[in-house]
């Protein structure tokens, strides 16, 4: 009996929560609700929904509501593009400024720390050969680097097919090999070699044949760090 009664009341709950029941029906329903926890729970569930109803707008009101103006899309696209462009030119300018700064700082480090009388890092320093065979002509230069010394060598008139070793002689007389090349009779050998000796520790550049004969020797100018 009780469940059946609930069903009858249930169907009034919708009108009740919307405040649309007649006075006598409302009183009767409220009496039932006060005794029936299940209907009470039902009312509170429906109420949390009806509380939100005023927040929504009915279709008629929606029709009157303004929308975005038709030209807003083009404005948005134009603004987005121009702002990205501005950002890009900004970042390009920043990159350029950073590169310039690096160059200036690098140059200050390279040239600013150079001691007087010392060869500048990265500068070609021509060297003269003191021992030369008559038929051999050679031209060379050394370049001081932070990691060692580079030897630039041009030789003509060496024994074709013979292997030659280029070394840098350290202050203590020990030769540090920088590389080897094969002699060519009628053409210039143009090579670039690197040795793990700092320029100020180098005494000479030596080119030897495979037999150990010194073909070319160039005593380097002394660059003491103190000088």
């Amino acid at each position, binding site marked *: 009996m009780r469940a059946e009664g609930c069903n009858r009341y249930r*169907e009034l709950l919708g009108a009740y929560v919307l405040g649309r029941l007649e006075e006598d029906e409302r009183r009767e329903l409220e009496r039932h609700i006060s005794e029936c926890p299940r209907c009470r729970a039902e009312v509170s569930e429906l109420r*949390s*929904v009806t509380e939100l109803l005023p*927040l929504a707008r*009915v279709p008629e009101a*929606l029709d009157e509501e303004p929308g975005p103006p038709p030209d807003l*899309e083009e404005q*948005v696209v134009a603004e987005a593009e121009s702002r990205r462009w501005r*950002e890009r030119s900004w970042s390009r300018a920043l990159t350029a400024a950073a590169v310039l700064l690096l160059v200036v700082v690098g140059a200050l480090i390279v040239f600013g720390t150079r001691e007087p009388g010392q060869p500048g890092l990265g500068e070609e320093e021509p060297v003269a050969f003191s021992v030369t065979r008559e038929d051999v002509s050679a031209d060379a230069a050394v370049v001081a680097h932070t990691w060692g010394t580079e030897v630039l060598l041009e030789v003509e008139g060496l024994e074709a097919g013979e292997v030659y070793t280029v070394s840098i002689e350290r202050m203590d007389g020990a030769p540090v090999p920088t590389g080897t090349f094969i002699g060519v009779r009628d053409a210039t050998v143009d090579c670039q070699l690197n040795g793990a000796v700092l320029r100020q520790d180098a005494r000479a550049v030596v080119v030897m044949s495979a037999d150990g004969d010194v073909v070319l020797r160039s005593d380097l100018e002394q660059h003491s760090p103190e000088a």
Partner: protein
Amino acid sequence: MTGANTIRRLGRRLRSRRRDTSEGEFPLRAAYADHAGELFQLAFRSLGDQGLAEEVVQETFVRAWRSSARFDERRGSVRTWLFAIARNLIVDAARARAVRSRAAGGEREEEWGVIGVTEDPTEKVLLGMQMEEALKRLSEDHHRVILEIYYRGRPYAEVAEEIGVSPSTLRSRTYYALKSLRLVLEEMGWSDES
């Protein structure tokens, strides 16, 4: 020949990959077509000002476009993302306006602290928009009864006659319509707990 072709293919692949990632374009126009209306509605209702609403919509899309690299589709839809950006802009706009009007009103400085707690005007608007969407998803019968009885405030008897049902049927229909409205809202992620 195959080697050169492989290199050409590789080059093409690398170029297309760069387009997809760093040069990846946020589909600005498509997103605008899908969401500008809703975003404008949110901004307009929250701020009650057409010019401000336009500014919010524009800034939302521009920001989304600029930071699209940060957008991760796996973490949520474009819509959720756009709404999050718009809500922040609306709250900022509401605060800025509050500051301006307080300053214009010449209130004392110590009262300005209240500005910090300006409530988020978008909350209720979003609930309302959610409700409108839920109402649209109801069956024709359920939608109609809520529209006529609640929103238009018409008498049961009149609506019942128009539809061709008894007033008691219409009353029970109101009950079922509200029940399904609750279900639809829950499906949309709404909850009345907490």
